[in-house]
């Protein structure tokens, strides 16, 4: 229905926000939190919520580039393996090669970035579909991590190393600050810059984007490398949090990340999505996990409930968005 071009009133603006993907999801989250808070008084406390912030940082950080990638219609399944590879390279270069720990951290993150770059290169230059390429490197990077570590773990880090993963800054877990900054910066990059627009354009119509003169390959290479970098950073945080490196670190994290991104309203077919939505997805899943555990639901039942909530949230959102499209 065509409407007159006039400035929307405050109420209309509010209504538009509320029935947006993010708005609906936010309300589902609010309802869940309130419900969980009535089940146990241990859940809605500052300490507990901050602790959950600590636990979700790695997934949150990787979910940002994953949002970018899924918006372009791609996928990166290798993020968990890159996380593991980074952790192993960090620990191995420190303990076996005798690098100073600072340099080992940089080497670790650099190897994660390189891993992402390799993904991007094959996707762009050789034209391997992202699903296939990253499925292959999911195995390859994990194998590398296992080979380098030879099933041994590096431990015994100095005290300062744990600051990022276990420490606090101004009363808030250190790594959560990092996540907040990353979300703000990369959220704005996606929503307000040329790069962001280009990603949406690629997702909506890659061929069209190419013919419009967008350097599609360069953008794709950039975001897969970015994904490797963020997985590397997440790997560093993870090692700092659990104080050891193991080659099986981050196994299965790609599914948590993709679940959060898709729950957050990013279309798996590309073209739509936002960092804000993704973050609501990340937070919702983490709070459900924790809240259910605190209300005495066992872990195996918890994953069933989370799966159901995922489906429910996506159905509700689809229903509302379809209705909204009609008005």
């Amino acid at each position, binding site marked *: 229905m065509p409407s007159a071009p006039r400035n929307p009133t405050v109420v209309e603006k509010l209504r538009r926000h509320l029935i947006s993907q993010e708005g609906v999801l936010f309300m589902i989250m609010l309802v869940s939190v309130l419900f969980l808070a009535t089940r*146990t008084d*241990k859940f809605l406390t500052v*300490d*507990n919520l901050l*602790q959950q912030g600590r*636990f979700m940082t790695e997934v949150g950080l990787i979910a940002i580039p994953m949002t970018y990638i899924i918006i372009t219609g791609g996928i990166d399944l290798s993020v968990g393996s890159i996380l593991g590879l980074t952790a192993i390279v960090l620990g191995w270069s420190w303990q076996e090669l005798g690098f100073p720990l600072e340099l080992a951290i940089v080497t670790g993150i650099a190897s994660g970035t*390189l891993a992402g*770059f*390799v993904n991007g*290169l*094959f996707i762009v*230059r*050789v034209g391997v579909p992202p699903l296939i390429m990253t499925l292959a490197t999911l195995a390859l990077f994990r194998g*590398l991590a296992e*080979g*380098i570590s*030879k*099933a*041994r*773990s590096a*431990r015994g880090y100095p005290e300062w190393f744990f600051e990022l993963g*276990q420490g606090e800054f101004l009363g808030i877990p250190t790594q959560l600050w990092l996540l907040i900054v990353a979300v703000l910066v990369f959220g704005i990059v996606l929503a307000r810059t040329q790069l962001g627009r280009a990603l949406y354009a690629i997702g909506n119509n890659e061929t069209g984007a190419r013919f419009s003169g967008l350097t599609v390959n360069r953008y794709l290479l950039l975001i897969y490398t970015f994904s490797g970098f963020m997985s590397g950073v997440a790997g560093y945080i*993870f090692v700092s949090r*659990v*104080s*050891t490196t*193991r080659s*099986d*670190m981050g*196994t*299965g994290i790609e599914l948590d990340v993709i679940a959060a991104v898709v729950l957050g309203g990013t279309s798996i077919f590309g073209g739509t999505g936002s960092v804000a939505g993704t973050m609501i997805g990340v937070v919702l899943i983490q709070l459900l*996990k*924790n809240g259910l*555990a*605190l209300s*005495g639901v*066992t*872990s*195996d039942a918890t*994953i069933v409930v989370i799966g159901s909530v995922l489906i429910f949230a996506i159905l509700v959102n689809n229903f509302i968005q379809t209705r909204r499209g009609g008005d």
Partner: protein
Amino acid sequence: MKKTLAISMILALLLALVSMPLSAQDRWDGADDLAVNPLACGMGDEMMDDSDEMMDDEEDMGMMEYDGGQPAMMGDDMAGMDIVLVDVPKLVGIGYFAATTLGQQQAAEELGNVSVTTDAPTEANIDDQIQVIDAYITQGVDGILFAANDPVAIAPVLRKALEAGIHVVGYDANSEPDAREWFVNQAEFNGIAKALVDSLADQMGADAAFGIVTSTFTTPNQARWIAEMWAYASECYPDLTWLETLEAQEDAVLSFQQAQTLINKYGEDMDGIFAMTSVATPNSADAVQQAGLCEDVAVVGLATPNGMKPYVNDGCVRDVILWNPVDLGYAAVYVTRAVVDGEFMPGDSSVMAGRLGELMVVNGSEVLLGPPFVFTADNINDFDF
């Protein structure tokens, strides 16, 4: 251009991986190079003497100081009161930890003033396990029993539990010692090694020749066991002939093939196969059975009963060495109860654990479940894991 670059980079990575030098072996293939502590010689029947001897060893070396951690004192003495424990194994949904849970429930029922719930991730994932424990600390329980997916990674959250005044006792897989009060150790490496070697020597004679199918030369547990077997056999059965160790990862097909390789290569000269993993043991037994050599080649290995029932029940394999996970879970609950009641303190040398009797303290803050358990045709059908 960039493609070439990428390919060469990957090649370089792979090359670096392959060319990593294998560590030099100054022991039997597959053994590690850590210090060994072989037990005194003796046949498996003398189980009680065995543990006495172990205590003698312990005294010879001087009792190790208690190195566990202690919970913060929270004021209220829970001695004799009802306590709520949560059990967080590596994962749920597998027979092994179902068996430890069963043992815990048996202990809780006998004691009457303990309730235990088992809750753990459905996959053995370090981070999920940490989050489960963290949630129980927030929720507030009297004690946490755990089997760690990683000894170091789990330590911070266990220390947090101790700080919150929660008792922490491990079983099956240890954490850093100061992150828990006690660890119920199901079997020491030297105990397993002795049981394996004794079994083979008993079946095939002290001059038997054997091969080994292991996971890899660098897998920590397997390497430790082989090192201890080497040390124990050198002392107690110097006439045993060590033929060869083959790697089979933890792969069923490969294990079968490697056992076959040993059979084909050594034929008549080989009297036994040690299988070091729960995958290698049934598959080695299968290879021996298919070659029709059940009488001539004894398979002795570490494995879970379910996988070995076919071979034990039809007589192809006599002994399967492991520990009894039901007793392991049972002991963990008794130890925790004793700790809460103040009956088991740092520095004590033993603890009473219901039907298991007196269990000895080893390595400072570990409670030893006892000698390994030998599954035979007489008892293997009583177990389901």
